[in-house]
Protein backbone atom coordinates (compact mmCIF):
# COMPACT_ATOMS: atom_id res chain seq x y z
CA UNK A 1 0.00 0.00 0.00
CA UNK A 2 2.84 2.41 -0.86
CA UNK A 3 2.16 5.79 -2.45
CA UNK A 4 3.15 4.35 -5.83
CA UNK A 5 0.42 1.73 -5.64
CA UNK A 6 -2.32 4.29 -5.04
CA UNK A 7 -5.64 3.53 -6.72
CA UNK A 8 -6.50 5.03 -10.09
CA UNK A 9 -9.09 7.21 -8.47
CA UNK A 10 -6.48 9.07 -6.38
CA UNK A 11 -5.65 12.45 -7.90
CA UNK A 12 -2.28 13.34 -9.41
CA UNK A 13 -1.03 15.80 -6.77
CA UNK A 14 -2.59 15.05 -3.40
CA UNK A 15 -3.25 17.76 -0.82
CA UNK A 16 -2.66 15.32 2.03
CA UNK A 17 -0.25 12.41 1.91
CA UNK A 18 0.15 10.12 4.89
CA UNK A 19 3.12 7.86 4.16
CA UNK A 20 3.75 4.67 6.14
CA UNK A 21 2.81 6.28 9.45
CA UNK A 22 3.13 4.29 12.69
CA UNK A 23 1.82 5.72 15.95
CA UNK A 24 2.05 4.53 19.53
CA UNK A 25 0.29 5.32 22.80
CA UNK A 26 3.02 4.28 25.21
CA UNK A 27 3.78 0.66 24.30
CA UNK A 28 0.52 0.20 22.41
CA UNK A 29 0.85 0.53 18.66
CA UNK A 30 -2.29 2.11 17.22
CA UNK A 31 -1.22 2.53 13.57
CA UNK A 32 0.98 0.21 11.47
CA UNK A 33 2.52 1.76 8.31
CA UNK A 34 -0.68 3.51 7.32
CA UNK A 35 -0.69 5.38 4.00
CA UNK A 36 -3.53 7.47 2.64
CA UNK A 37 -3.83 10.21 0.03
CA UNK A 38 -6.47 12.90 -0.26
CA UNK A 39 -6.71 15.18 -3.27
CA UNK A 40 -7.75 18.84 -3.11
CA UNK A 41 -11.55 19.15 -3.15
CA UNK A 42 -12.17 15.47 -2.40
CA UNK A 43 -14.50 14.06 0.24
CA UNK A 44 -12.84 11.03 1.80
CA UNK A 45 -14.31 8.78 4.49
CA UNK A 46 -12.26 6.77 6.95
CA UNK A 47 -14.31 3.95 8.38
CA UNK A 48 -13.56 1.18 10.78
CA UNK A 49 -14.65 -0.41 14.01
CA UNK A 50 -14.09 1.07 17.45
CA UNK A 51 -10.35 1.03 18.17
CA UNK A 52 -9.31 0.55 14.54
CA UNK A 53 -7.12 3.67 14.69
CA UNK A 54 -9.35 6.19 12.88
CA UNK A 55 -9.10 8.94 15.50
CA UNK A 56 -5.38 8.26 15.92
CA UNK A 57 -4.92 8.78 12.20
CA UNK A 58 -6.72 12.14 12.36
CA UNK A 59 -4.74 13.13 15.46
CA UNK A 60 -1.47 12.43 13.64
CA UNK A 61 -2.61 14.55 10.69
CA UNK A 62 -3.73 17.41 12.98
CA UNK A 63 -0.51 17.26 15.00
CA UNK A 64 -1.87 16.16 18.36
CA UNK A 65 0.23 13.03 18.02
CA UNK A 66 3.69 12.70 16.41
CA UNK A 67 4.20 9.57 14.33
CA UNK A 68 7.08 7.37 15.46
CA UNK A 69 7.86 6.61 11.84
CA UNK A 70 6.51 7.70 8.48
CA UNK A 71 5.69 11.16 7.20
CA UNK A 72 2.69 13.45 6.87
CA UNK A 73 2.80 15.79 3.88
CA UNK A 74 0.40 18.66 3.40
CA UNK A 75 0.37 20.64 0.16
CA UNK A 76 3.74 19.08 -0.64
CA UNK A 77 5.45 20.10 2.63
CA UNK A 78 6.44 17.67 5.39
CA UNK A 79 4.40 18.62 8.47
CA UNK A 80 4.83 15.43 10.55
CA UNK A 81 6.91 17.12 13.23
CA UNK A 82 5.05 20.46 13.35
CA UNK A 83 2.99 21.18 16.50
CA UNK A 84 -0.79 21.29 16.07
CA UNK A 85 -1.08 25.09 16.19
CA UNK A 86 1.31 25.46 13.23
CA UNK A 87 -0.66 22.94 11.18
CA UNK A 88 -3.76 25.08 11.79
CA UNK A 89 -1.89 27.98 10.25
CA UNK A 90 -1.00 25.73 7.29
CA UNK A 91 -4.70 25.01 6.74
CA UNK A 92 -5.53 21.80 8.61
CA UNK A 93 -8.54 21.96 10.95
CA UNK A 94 -9.80 19.12 13.14
CA UNK A 95 -13.33 18.91 14.51
CA UNK A 96 -12.51 16.62 17.42
CA UNK A 97 -14.45 13.65 18.69
CA UNK A 98 -16.76 14.81 21.48
CA UNK A 99 -16.92 18.32 19.90
CA UNK A 100 -14.76 19.91 22.59
CA UNK A 101 -16.58 23.23 22.75
CA UNK A 102 -14.95 25.62 25.23
CA UNK A 103 -17.47 25.82 28.10
CA UNK A 104 -16.38 29.20 29.46
CA UNK A 105 -16.61 30.90 26.07
CA UNK A 106 -19.88 31.96 24.50
CA UNK A 107 -20.97 30.41 21.20
CA UNK A 108 -19.79 33.50 19.35
CA UNK A 109 -16.46 33.48 21.19
CA UNK A 110 -16.08 29.79 20.37
CA UNK A 111 -16.52 30.71 16.71
CA UNK A 112 -14.24 33.74 16.86
CA UNK A 113 -11.44 31.78 18.49
CA UNK A 114 -11.56 29.49 15.47
CA UNK A 115 -10.26 32.49 13.54
CA UNK A 116 -7.24 32.79 15.85
CA UNK A 117 -4.95 32.02 12.91
CA UNK A 118 -7.39 32.92 10.22
CA UNK A 119 -6.35 32.31 6.64
CA UNK A 120 -8.09 34.26 3.90
CA UNK A 121 -11.11 32.52 2.43
CA UNK A 122 -14.86 32.39 2.13
CA UNK A 123 -15.72 31.66 5.76
CA UNK A 124 -16.47 34.32 8.35
CA UNK A 125 -18.87 34.76 11.23
CA UNK A 126 -21.73 35.74 8.90
CA UNK A 127 -21.22 32.77 6.57
CA UNK A 128 -21.09 30.33 9.50
CA UNK A 129 -24.34 31.78 10.86
CA UNK A 130 -25.87 31.36 7.39
CA UNK A 131 -24.76 27.72 7.35
CA UNK A 132 -26.11 27.10 10.85
CA UNK A 133 -28.88 29.64 11.57
CA UNK A 134 -29.48 27.92 14.94
CA UNK A 135 -26.08 29.15 16.13
CA UNK A 136 -27.01 32.75 15.44
CA UNK A 137 -29.82 32.54 17.96
CA UNK A 138 -27.46 30.99 20.53
CA UNK A 139 -24.62 33.50 20.01
CA UNK A 140 -24.55 34.71 23.61
CA UNK A 141 -25.01 31.33 25.31
CA UNK A 142 -22.10 29.72 27.19
CA UNK A 143 -20.53 26.83 25.29
CA UNK A 144 -21.08 24.53 28.27
CA UNK A 145 -24.87 24.82 28.01
CA UNK A 146 -25.33 23.55 24.43
CA UNK A 147 -27.02 20.31 23.38
CA UNK A 148 -25.00 17.71 21.47
CA UNK A 149 -26.24 18.82 18.05
CA UNK A 150 -25.66 22.50 18.84
CA UNK A 151 -22.16 21.64 20.02
CA UNK A 152 -21.45 19.79 16.79
CA UNK A 153 -22.58 22.76 14.67
CA UNK A 154 -20.50 25.08 16.82
CA UNK A 155 -17.46 22.81 16.51
CA UNK A 156 -17.78 22.67 12.70
CA UNK A 157 -18.31 26.44 12.59
CA UNK A 158 -15.25 26.98 14.78
CA UNK A 159 -13.12 24.91 12.42
CA UNK A 160 -14.47 26.73 9.33
CA UNK A 161 -13.69 30.15 10.82
CA UNK A 162 -9.99 29.52 10.19
CA UNK A 163 -10.70 28.89 6.48
CA UNK A 164 -8.93 25.55 6.36
CA UNK A 165 -7.93 23.86 3.11
CA UNK A 166 -8.56 20.51 4.80
CA UNK A 167 -11.21 19.86 7.43
CA UNK A 168 -11.03 16.65 9.45
CA UNK A 169 -14.34 15.57 10.99
CA UNK A 170 -14.09 12.98 13.76
CA UNK A 171 -17.16 10.87 14.64
CA UNK A 172 -19.63 13.48 13.42
CA UNK A 173 -22.76 11.49 14.20
CA UNK A 174 -21.73 9.99 17.54
CA UNK A 175 -24.44 10.47 20.15
CA UNK A 176 -26.67 12.67 17.95
CA UNK A 177 -30.32 12.27 17.02
CA UNK A 178 -30.95 11.05 13.42
CA UNK A 179 -32.65 14.34 12.52
CA UNK A 180 -29.60 16.31 13.66
CA UNK A 181 -27.22 13.95 11.85
CA UNK A 182 -29.14 14.58 8.63
CA UNK A 183 -28.82 18.36 9.00
CA UNK A 184 -25.11 18.12 9.73
CA UNK A 185 -24.39 15.79 6.81
CA UNK A 186 -26.24 18.14 4.46
CA UNK A 187 -23.83 20.90 5.38
CA UNK A 188 -20.82 18.80 4.41
CA UNK A 189 -21.84 19.25 0.79
CA UNK A 190 -21.98 23.03 1.31
CA UNK A 191 -18.54 23.01 2.91
CA UNK A 192 -17.01 21.01 0.07
CA UNK A 193 -18.71 23.29 -2.45
CA UNK A 194 -16.66 26.18 -1.04
CA UNK A 195 -13.50 24.30 -2.06
CA UNK A 196 -12.62 22.79 1.28
CA UNK A 197 -11.31 19.24 1.26
CA UNK A 198 -13.18 16.97 3.69
CA UNK A 199 -11.94 13.90 5.55
CA UNK A 200 -14.55 12.31 7.77
CA UNK A 201 -14.23 9.52 10.26
CA UNK A 202 -17.29 7.43 11.03
CA UNK A 203 -18.38 4.21 12.63
CA UNK A 204 -21.65 4.50 10.74
CA UNK A 205 -20.64 2.97 7.40
CA UNK A 206 -23.66 3.79 5.26
CA UNK A 207 -23.69 7.42 6.40
CA UNK A 208 -19.99 7.81 5.56
CA UNK A 209 -20.10 6.01 2.22
CA UNK A 210 -23.07 8.08 1.09
CA UNK A 211 -21.32 11.35 1.87
CA UNK A 212 -17.83 10.58 0.49
CA UNK A 213 -16.21 10.14 -2.94
CA UNK A 214 -13.63 7.67 -1.69
CA UNK A 215 -13.17 5.63 1.47
CA UNK A 216 -10.42 3.95 3.44
CA UNK A 217 -11.29 1.20 5.88
CA UNK A 218 -9.02 0.65 8.87
CA UNK A 219 -8.76 -2.66 10.69
CA UNK A 220 -6.59 -2.97 13.80
CA UNK A 221 -4.34 -0.10 12.79
CA UNK A 222 -3.89 -1.07 9.13
CA UNK A 223 -5.65 -0.04 5.91
CA UNK A 224 -7.78 -3.05 5.00
CA UNK A 225 -9.57 -1.59 1.99
CA UNK A 226 -9.69 1.57 -0.08
CA UNK A 227 -11.38 2.76 -3.20
CA UNK A 228 -14.10 4.92 -4.70
CA UNK A 229 -17.29 4.58 -2.66
CA UNK A 230 -19.29 3.86 -5.81
CA UNK A 231 -17.15 0.80 -6.49
CA UNK A 232 -17.15 -0.66 -2.97
CA UNK A 233 -19.60 -3.51 -2.53
CA UNK A 234 -21.22 -3.99 0.82
CA UNK A 235 -19.70 -7.44 1.04
CA UNK A 236 -16.12 -6.18 0.65
CA UNK A 237 -16.70 -3.37 3.16
CA UNK A 238 -18.09 -5.74 5.79
CA UNK A 239 -15.13 -8.04 5.28
CA UNK A 240 -12.63 -5.18 5.62
CA UNK A 241 -14.49 -3.67 8.56
CA UNK A 242 -14.69 -6.78 10.71
CA UNK A 243 -11.75 -8.71 9.27
CA UNK A 244 -13.86 -11.80 8.64
CA UNK A 245 -13.96 -13.92 5.48
Amino acid sequence: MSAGAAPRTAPASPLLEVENVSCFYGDFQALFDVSIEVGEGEKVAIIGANGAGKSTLLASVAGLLRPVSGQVRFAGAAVGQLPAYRRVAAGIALVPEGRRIFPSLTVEENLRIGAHRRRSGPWGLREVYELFPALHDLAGRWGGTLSGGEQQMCAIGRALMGNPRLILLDELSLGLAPKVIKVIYETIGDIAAQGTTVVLVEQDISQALAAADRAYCLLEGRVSLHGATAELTRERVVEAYFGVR
Partner: protein
Amino acid sequence: MVWINQIVQGIMLGGLYALFATGLSLVFGVMRLVNLAHGDLIVLASFLSLVIVDNLAWNPFTTLVLVIPMMAVLGFALQYLLLNHTLDSGLAPILATFGLSVIIQNALLEQFSADQRRLHVGSIETQSMRITSEISIGWFSLIMFLVAVLLLVGLQLLIRRTRLGRSLRATSDDQRTAQLVGIDNRTLYGVAMAISLATAAIAGVFLGVYTNFDPSSGPARLIFGFEAVIIGGLGSLWGTLAGGIVLGVSQAIGAQISIGWGELTGNLVFLAILLVRPRGLFPGPEPA
Protein backbone atom coordinates in the same frame (compact mmCIF):
# COMPACT_ATOMS: atom_id res chain seq x y z
CA MET B 1 -15.50 52.22 67.32
CA VAL B 2 -12.02 50.85 67.58
CA TRP B 3 -13.40 47.61 66.11
CA ILE B 4 -14.87 49.37 63.13
CA ASN B 5 -11.54 51.03 62.61
CA GLN B 6 -9.79 47.65 62.64
CA ILE B 7 -12.29 46.26 60.14
CA VAL B 8 -11.65 49.18 57.80
CA GLN B 9 -7.89 48.61 58.08
CA GLY B 10 -8.50 44.91 57.40
CA ILE B 11 -10.43 45.69 54.23
CA MET B 12 -7.55 47.85 52.98
CA LEU B 13 -5.05 45.06 53.67
CA GLY B 14 -7.43 42.61 51.97
CA GLY B 15 -6.92 44.40 48.67
CA LEU B 16 -3.22 43.55 48.88
CA TYR B 17 -3.94 39.91 49.67
CA ALA B 18 -6.25 39.80 46.67
CA LEU B 19 -3.28 40.91 44.56
CA PHE B 20 -1.16 38.03 45.90
CA ALA B 21 -4.02 35.67 45.17
CA THR B 22 -4.71 36.92 41.64
CA GLY B 23 -1.23 36.10 40.41
CA LEU B 24 -1.49 32.64 41.90
CA SER B 25 -4.94 31.83 40.59
CA LEU B 26 -4.16 33.11 37.07
CA VAL B 27 -1.33 30.62 36.52
CA PHE B 28 -3.26 27.86 38.25
CA GLY B 29 -6.29 28.53 36.06
CA VAL B 30 -4.41 28.68 32.75
CA MET B 31 -1.76 25.98 33.14
CA ARG B 32 -2.75 24.16 36.37
CA LEU B 33 0.56 25.29 37.86
CA VAL B 34 0.84 25.71 41.61
CA ASN B 35 3.58 28.31 41.90
CA LEU B 36 5.17 27.78 45.31
CA ALA B 37 7.69 30.53 44.54
CA HIS B 38 5.02 33.23 44.13
CA GLY B 39 5.61 34.68 47.61
CA ASP B 40 9.37 34.77 47.09
CA LEU B 41 8.90 36.44 43.72
CA ILE B 42 6.82 39.13 45.46
CA VAL B 43 9.69 39.65 47.93
CA LEU B 44 12.15 39.67 45.02
CA ALA B 45 10.14 42.55 43.55
CA SER B 46 10.38 44.40 46.89
CA PHE B 47 14.17 44.02 46.81
CA LEU B 48 14.38 45.08 43.15
CA SER B 49 12.54 48.24 44.11
CA LEU B 50 14.87 48.73 47.07
CA VAL B 51 17.96 48.46 44.86
CA ILE B 52 16.60 51.10 42.50
CA VAL B 53 15.64 53.36 45.43
CA ASP B 54 19.14 53.00 46.92
CA ASN B 55 20.97 53.63 43.67
CA LEU B 56 18.82 56.17 41.87
CA ALA B 57 17.07 57.74 44.85
CA TRP B 58 13.68 57.24 43.19
CA ASN B 59 10.40 57.08 45.03
CA PRO B 60 9.35 53.40 45.37
CA PHE B 61 6.16 54.14 43.39
CA THR B 62 8.30 55.38 40.49
CA THR B 63 10.37 52.21 40.56
CA LEU B 64 7.28 50.33 39.37
CA VAL B 65 8.08 51.69 35.90
CA LEU B 66 11.12 49.40 35.94
CA VAL B 67 10.09 46.66 38.37
CA ILE B 68 6.87 45.70 36.52
CA PRO B 69 8.56 45.10 33.14
CA MET B 70 11.53 43.39 34.79
CA MET B 71 9.26 40.96 36.65
CA ALA B 72 7.12 40.38 33.55
CA VAL B 73 10.16 39.50 31.44
CA LEU B 74 11.44 37.26 34.23
CA GLY B 75 8.05 35.56 34.34
CA PHE B 76 7.98 34.88 30.61
CA ALA B 77 11.55 33.55 30.65
CA LEU B 78 10.94 31.40 33.71
CA GLN B 79 7.87 29.81 32.18
CA TYR B 80 9.20 29.42 28.67
CA LEU B 81 12.70 28.22 29.50
CA LEU B 82 12.05 26.24 32.68
CA LEU B 83 8.51 25.52 33.81
CA ASN B 84 7.11 24.62 30.35
CA HIS B 85 9.51 21.66 30.31
CA THR B 86 8.03 20.29 33.53
CA LEU B 87 4.33 20.62 32.72
CA ASP B 88 3.47 17.15 31.47
CA SER B 89 5.22 15.27 34.25
CA GLY B 90 3.16 15.02 37.41
CA LEU B 91 4.87 16.47 40.44
CA ALA B 92 7.71 18.09 38.50
CA PRO B 93 6.22 21.61 38.27
CA ILE B 94 5.49 21.84 41.97
CA LEU B 95 9.00 20.60 42.79
CA ALA B 96 10.51 23.05 40.31
CA THR B 97 8.72 26.02 41.88
CA PHE B 98 9.62 24.77 45.37
CA GLY B 99 13.27 24.65 44.30
CA LEU B 100 12.93 28.10 42.80
CA SER B 101 11.58 29.35 46.13
CA VAL B 102 14.66 28.02 47.96
CA ILE B 103 16.99 29.50 45.35
CA ILE B 104 15.39 32.95 45.50
CA GLN B 105 15.45 33.05 49.31
CA ASN B 106 19.10 32.05 49.48
CA ALA B 107 20.18 34.36 46.67
CA LEU B 108 18.46 37.27 48.41
CA LEU B 109 20.05 36.29 51.73
CA GLU B 110 23.47 36.15 50.09
CA GLN B 111 23.03 39.54 48.47
CA PHE B 112 21.08 41.51 51.08
CA SER B 113 21.66 39.72 54.45
CA ALA B 114 18.81 38.77 56.77
CA ASP B 115 18.12 42.38 57.86
CA GLN B 116 14.56 43.64 57.88
CA ARG B 117 14.04 46.19 55.09
CA ARG B 118 11.40 48.77 54.30
CA LEU B 119 10.56 50.96 51.33
CA HIS B 120 9.74 54.59 52.12
CA VAL B 121 7.39 56.78 50.12
CA GLY B 122 7.60 59.89 52.30
CA SER B 123 4.97 61.64 54.38
CA ILE B 124 2.02 59.90 52.68
CA GLU B 125 2.89 56.82 54.75
CA THR B 126 1.73 58.48 57.95
CA GLN B 127 -0.97 60.86 56.71
CA SER B 128 -4.53 59.77 57.07
CA MET B 129 -8.05 60.82 56.34
CA ARG B 130 -10.09 61.23 59.52
CA ILE B 131 -13.64 59.88 59.10
CA THR B 132 -14.74 60.17 62.74
CA SER B 133 -12.73 60.76 65.90
CA GLU B 134 -12.04 57.01 66.11
CA ILE B 135 -11.88 55.94 62.48
CA SER B 136 -9.18 57.09 60.14
CA ILE B 137 -7.94 55.66 56.88
CA GLY B 138 -4.29 56.03 55.97
CA TRP B 139 -3.82 57.55 52.52
CA PHE B 140 -1.30 54.90 51.64
CA SER B 141 -3.65 52.05 52.68
CA LEU B 142 -6.41 53.62 50.63
CA ILE B 143 -4.19 53.97 47.57
CA MET B 144 -3.04 50.37 48.00
CA PHE B 145 -6.64 49.17 48.15
CA LEU B 146 -7.75 51.22 45.17
CA VAL B 147 -4.79 50.07 43.07
CA ALA B 148 -5.62 46.47 43.93
CA VAL B 149 -9.27 46.92 42.96
CA LEU B 150 -8.37 48.73 39.73
CA LEU B 151 -5.93 45.98 38.85
CA LEU B 152 -8.56 43.31 39.47
CA VAL B 153 -11.07 45.19 37.32
CA GLY B 154 -8.44 45.56 34.61
CA LEU B 155 -7.60 41.87 34.68
CA GLN B 156 -11.28 40.99 34.63
CA LEU B 157 -11.75 43.12 31.49
CA LEU B 158 -8.64 41.61 29.92
CA ILE B 159 -9.91 38.10 30.51
CA ARG B 160 -13.54 38.75 29.50
CA ARG B 161 -13.14 41.19 26.64
CA THR B 162 -9.88 40.74 24.76
CA ARG B 163 -8.53 38.25 22.26
CA LEU B 164 -5.75 37.37 24.72
CA GLY B 165 -8.29 36.79 27.47
CA ARG B 166 -10.32 34.55 25.18
CA SER B 167 -7.22 32.48 24.45
CA LEU B 168 -6.44 32.26 28.18
CA ARG B 169 -9.97 31.06 28.97
CA ALA B 170 -9.97 28.55 26.10
CA THR B 171 -6.60 27.15 27.20
CA SER B 172 -7.80 26.96 30.78
CA ASP B 173 -10.86 24.99 29.59
CA ASP B 174 -9.04 22.56 27.33
CA GLN B 175 -5.42 23.07 26.27
CA ARG B 176 -5.46 20.27 23.68
CA THR B 177 -8.41 21.74 21.81
CA ALA B 178 -6.91 25.23 22.19
CA GLN B 179 -3.97 23.99 20.09
CA LEU B 180 -6.46 22.76 17.50
CA VAL B 181 -7.72 26.31 16.95
CA GLY B 182 -4.14 27.51 16.51
CA ILE B 183 -3.20 28.67 19.99
CA ASP B 184 0.49 28.20 20.79
CA ASN B 185 -0.06 27.11 24.38
CA ARG B 186 3.58 27.31 25.46
CA THR B 187 3.93 30.94 24.48
CA LEU B 188 0.55 31.67 26.06
CA TYR B 189 1.75 30.10 29.33
CA GLY B 190 4.72 32.47 29.21
CA VAL B 191 2.37 35.43 28.77
CA ALA B 192 0.21 34.25 31.70
CA MET B 193 3.27 34.00 33.95
CA ALA B 194 4.41 37.45 32.78
CA ILE B 195 1.04 38.91 33.81
CA SER B 196 1.19 37.00 37.10
CA LEU B 197 4.62 38.40 37.96
CA ALA B 198 3.59 41.90 36.88
CA THR B 199 0.92 41.72 39.61
CA ALA B 200 3.58 40.31 41.95
CA ALA B 201 5.73 43.36 41.18
CA ILE B 202 2.95 45.73 42.22
CA ALA B 203 2.18 43.63 45.30
CA GLY B 204 5.86 43.56 46.22
CA VAL B 205 6.35 47.31 46.08
CA PHE B 206 3.16 48.07 48.04
CA LEU B 207 3.98 45.40 50.59
CA GLY B 208 7.48 46.77 51.00
CA VAL B 209 6.01 50.12 51.96
CA TYR B 210 3.24 48.64 54.09
CA THR B 211 5.42 46.39 56.21
CA ASN B 212 8.96 45.13 56.79
CA PHE B 213 10.40 42.44 54.55
CA ASP B 214 13.46 40.23 54.53
CA PRO B 215 14.64 37.37 52.29
CA SER B 216 12.55 34.81 54.19
CA SER B 217 9.24 36.73 54.06
CA GLY B 218 8.05 34.98 50.88
CA PRO B 219 6.41 31.82 52.23
CA ALA B 220 4.12 33.84 54.54
CA ARG B 221 2.99 35.93 51.53
CA LEU B 222 2.35 32.72 49.63
CA ILE B 223 0.16 31.38 52.44
CA PHE B 224 -1.92 34.58 52.53
CA GLY B 225 -2.34 34.37 48.77
CA PHE B 226 -3.47 30.75 48.90
CA GLU B 227 -5.83 31.47 51.77
CA ALA B 228 -7.41 34.37 49.89
CA VAL B 229 -7.87 32.19 46.79
CA ILE B 230 -9.48 29.38 48.78
CA ILE B 231 -11.69 31.59 50.95
CA GLY B 232 -12.94 33.46 47.89
CA GLY B 233 -13.32 30.44 45.64
CA LEU B 234 -11.19 29.49 42.67
CA GLY B 235 -11.96 30.87 39.27
CA SER B 236 -13.61 34.15 40.12
CA LEU B 237 -11.72 37.41 40.43
CA TRP B 238 -14.40 39.02 42.59
CA GLY B 239 -14.28 36.00 44.86
CA THR B 240 -10.56 36.58 45.13
CA LEU B 241 -11.11 40.17 46.26
CA ALA B 242 -13.72 39.02 48.76
CA GLY B 243 -11.34 36.30 49.96
CA GLY B 244 -8.56 38.83 50.44
CA ILE B 245 -10.88 41.11 52.40
CA VAL B 246 -12.19 38.30 54.63
CA LEU B 247 -8.60 37.32 55.39
CA GLY B 248 -7.48 40.91 56.01
CA VAL B 249 -10.43 41.65 58.29
CA SER B 250 -9.94 38.39 60.22
CA GLN B 251 -6.31 39.25 60.81
CA ALA B 252 -7.16 42.79 61.88
CA ILE B 253 -9.84 41.63 64.31
CA GLY B 254 -7.53 38.96 65.72
CA ALA B 255 -4.78 41.49 66.20
CA GLN B 256 -7.22 43.76 68.06
CA ILE B 257 -8.08 40.95 70.50
CA SER B 258 -4.43 40.33 71.17
CA ILE B 259 -1.50 41.61 69.17
CA GLY B 260 -0.10 38.13 68.48
CA TRP B 261 -3.38 36.68 67.27
CA GLY B 262 -3.62 38.38 63.88
CA GLU B 263 -2.23 35.70 61.59
CA LEU B 264 -3.61 32.92 63.78
CA THR B 265 -7.15 34.27 63.46
CA GLY B 266 -6.71 34.53 59.70
CA ASN B 267 -5.60 30.89 59.55
CA LEU B 268 -8.50 29.76 61.74
CA VAL B 269 -11.07 31.58 59.61
CA PHE B 270 -9.50 30.03 56.53
CA LEU B 271 -9.76 26.54 58.05
CA ALA B 272 -13.35 27.15 59.14
CA ILE B 273 -14.37 28.22 55.64
CA LEU B 274 -12.54 25.26 54.13
CA LEU B 275 -14.61 22.98 56.42
CA VAL B 276 -17.96 24.62 55.83
CA ARG B 277 -17.63 25.69 52.20
CA PRO B 278 -14.79 23.77 50.60
CA ARG B 279 -15.30 25.48 47.24
CA GLY B 280 -15.01 28.93 48.82
CA LEU B 281 -17.48 31.74 49.37
CA PHE B 282 -17.88 32.76 45.73
CA PRO B 283 -16.85 29.85 43.52
CA GLY B 284 -16.65 30.26 39.75
CA PRO B 285 -18.83 28.13 37.48
CA GLU B 286 -18.66 24.35 37.97
CA PRO B 287 -16.14 22.83 35.58
CA ALA B 288 -17.99 21.25 32.68
